[in-house]
């Protein structure tokens, strides 16, 4: 290509554009922002986190900023993703803030140009730089694991499975429950990591164990607590920890092969009907207060440097983790869903 003045101009503009696309400066919560948010009066929070957790965030936010009502729109991350795609395609601008359980969704939304860059002050100051989005279009709100688990009334601790491989033992046939990657972002992420590290052969063998199939990753822990199944082949650890602390007979198992590591980022939509309320909520979610709630009530992990863990809680550094790879999930999501449906029949 000949370098003309026009192409030169274009390329320098592009260079300028990339610089502009980099994260905007961090913003503090100002009285002006609060005022503007109150004028809007409400916001729609689409999320995949367990409903009581999401509603708890909503209520805590409403208590702190009276006059801004939060409506929680909760379903499995893959259904949230489908919902947003459907609404955007029909020019329906309903979503203000979205928190997913499948980080791959952020790649798609960003590519579509749907996300608004906004960096809350706490994220810039207290979150590790390697976990900050370079464009500032999302913030990593929460981290949790897709662990195994068992019902302590039905399984003795010494008999409990210690690894994914243990789940293939015939003694667990018909006794396990798992969630579904076409509904749950946690399970989509976990299935990707398990298939990558253990191979699809593992999942094919697991499917022969007559596993009870539910949708959301928040359901297997509850099925364990009911005693409907003895062992959880996937799901999430945070619901198990909550249930255990409430006296339910459940126990978490972090498998020896490594536990699938799930990240849940939050983003603001460009076309948000309540852009200021959205920013205020985004700032609140990532404030020390919001993140402490995440740790204390939701029993998930925070990246906020000032947040303190509950005494006795397992630290992430003590657990052998599988590696997360949002780009890998994004590339393979469709194949994973198809292959999974074939193997498990639903």
């Amino acid at each position, binding site marked *: 290509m000949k370098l003309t003045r026009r192409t030169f101009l274009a390329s320098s503009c592009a260079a300028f554009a990339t610089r502009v696309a980099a994260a905007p400066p961090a913003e503090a919560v100002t009285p002006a922002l609060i005022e503007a948010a109150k004028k809007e009066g409400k916001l729609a929070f689409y999320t995949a986190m367990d*409903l009581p957790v999401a509603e708890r965030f909503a209520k805590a936010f409403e208590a702190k900023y009276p006059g801004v009502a939060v409506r929680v729109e909760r*379903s*499995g991350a*893959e259904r949230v993703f489908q919902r947003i795609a459907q609404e955007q395609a029909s020019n*329906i601008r309903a979503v203000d803030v979205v928190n997913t359980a499948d980080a791959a969704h952020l790649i798609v939304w960003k590519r579509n140009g749907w996300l608004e860059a906004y960096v809350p002050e706490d994220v810039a100051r207290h979150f590790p730089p390697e976990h900050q989005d370079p464009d500032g279009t999302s913030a990593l709100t929460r981290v949790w694991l897709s662990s195994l688990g068992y019902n302590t009334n039905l399984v003795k601790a010494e008999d409990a499975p210690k690894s994914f491989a243990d789940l293939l033992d015939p003694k667990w046939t018909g006794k396990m429950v798992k969630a*579904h990657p076409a509904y749950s972002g946690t399970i989509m992420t976990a299935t990707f990591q398990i298939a990558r590290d253990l191979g699809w052969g593992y999942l094919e063998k697991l499917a022969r164990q007559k596993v009870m199939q539910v949708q959301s990753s928040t*359901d297997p822990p*509850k099925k364990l607590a*009911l005693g409907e199944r003895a062992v959880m082949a996937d799901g999430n650890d945070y619901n198990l920890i909550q249930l255990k602390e409430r006296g339910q007979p459940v126990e978490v198992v972090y498998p020896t092969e490594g536990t699938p590591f799930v990240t849940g980022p939050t983003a603001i939509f460009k076309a948000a009907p309540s852009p200021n309320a959205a920013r205020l909520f985004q700032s609140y979610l990532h404030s020390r207060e919001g993140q402490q709630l995440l740790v204390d009530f939701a029993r998930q992990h925070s990246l906020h440097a000032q947040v303190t863990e509950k005494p006795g809680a397992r630290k992430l550094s003590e657990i052998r983790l599988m590696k997360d790879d949002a780009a890998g999930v994004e590339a393979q999501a469709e194949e994973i869903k198809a292959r999974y449906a074939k193997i498990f029949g639903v």
Partner: protein
Amino acid sequence: MTTAIVTPAPRRRFDLSWPILIGFSAVLCALIVLPMSWLVFYSFTDKGRFTLENFVKLATDPTFTAPLLTTVIIATSSAIICCAVAAPMGWLVARTDMPLRRTVRALVTASFVTPPFLGAIAWELLAAPNSGMLNQLYRAAIGDPGAEPLFDIYSLGGLIFVISCYTFPYVFVLVANALDRIPGDLEDASSILGGRALVTARRVTIPLALPALLAGALVAFLQAMTLFGSPAILAMPAGFHTMTTKIWSLFQYPPKPELAAAASLPLLVLTVLLLRAEAMILGRRSYAVVGGKQGDPRLVQLGVWKWVALGVALFVLMNPVFLPYGALLNAAFSPVATQLVTFSTATLHNIHFVFFELSATKLAFRNTLVLGVLSATVGTLIAVVIAYITARRAITGWRGLAFLATAPVAVPGIVLGVGLFLSYTRPPFVLYGTLWILLIAFVTIALPAAYQQLQSAFRAVNPDLEEASRILGATRLQALGHITAPLLRTSVIATWCFIFVGVIRELSAAIILFTSETKVISVLIFDLNESGDLGAISVLGLIMLAVTFAVVIAINRIPGFGGARLRNT
């Protein structure tokens, strides 16, 4: 127009019926033909180009053929079970001296208004293989905590059972209504001529009730075939798909509406065939039984057997009503959904959560009520007109209208949802994201059943009465207003309630058409089920039932309705 010539009326009494009839026909076409056209169009395309690939895949891919077979098995079994249970019960209630007949009718009403997905969730609480309360009870009774479960609701049999529980009221209502309308004279004539009870039943009562039973079997089959809620809750844990859940799964990202459209066509074809068969069976006879004179129905004296009959009826009603309601009530107050609540363990946590924490509650209730009232009013109006046209063959092309009014029953709500989605997401009609699109969906879905119900009511009113009125100079509308409408008042009120309740139960179209701002209770409950929040579901479900009963009872008591008693919805 011959009527205008014959009628010796002054010009100002111009018969308005034709423009009205034609207008309604046009609305019907728009409701049904538009989304169906999109469906058919889509089923032959793949990303915009013409292809037959969708159908090839449908016929050869086992992930489609297996659900189709499963669906046919479920629909057939459910229809048979429903008829076997509902027909004798309808007879007991309408034609015998069984005690507590009104209570039994009210309880069948209760099972009808229970949303099938709520029933399915309640039966999970009761009969999940390990945590189910009935299985716990069984294990405690035999003293073996490790025993194999007595019931497994997560199975094909379990699903058929739950579907039948909430489909049999359709058959019951049709049969009981038909038996109510059979005048006692005919049966008396039979006994006077020496026919004993069984002969009378075989020669008089059963043939006269047959159209209702056949219509009931048909409705039951089609309901079971197109049901989404119960399979969505029970089939996935059981590890299989029905056609409706399969179609739903095709809308996961990235959506495949072409395949979904193609997958719905076999259901449509099946329905058309069934309707043809019904018409052939019923077409040759006349079933007008309500004439100018009518004797009261004669009640069969059962003697001591009446207590046995009552026992059987109550046992049947345990399955759709007593047990599930009990399980929901227990779960609403219990810290663990499947543990029997006691005074010391009872908690208000679930109620607090639903009312003070769950931010979707208020909006979902408001949307549901608004949609229920609007759909019931609009839907009843349309159904009355269409039923009149077809029952009286009032215009040429009435067969086409009858087909159109019945056709939506063959389209799973979820597929209708997509048809509407495709029709109303682009200019000039952008309705997605509003309540209007849900209104259209609910009216369309309710139409076949509403139409069937009113049409058999019209059929039972002898046209002689209207004709007499018209000979005396009334226009068609006046004849309708003065003669037919009063006779049909009960049926019309029943139909209104029928649609209202249907809207509250509806999940399959709503699951496609809702947005976060137009969410209804059924979708909210479905979302809660996804994450296993059984306590909150129980509270919401019970409130939903309470609201439904309140509306049905209130409508029944409005003085303007002239004390018409709603006997069957």
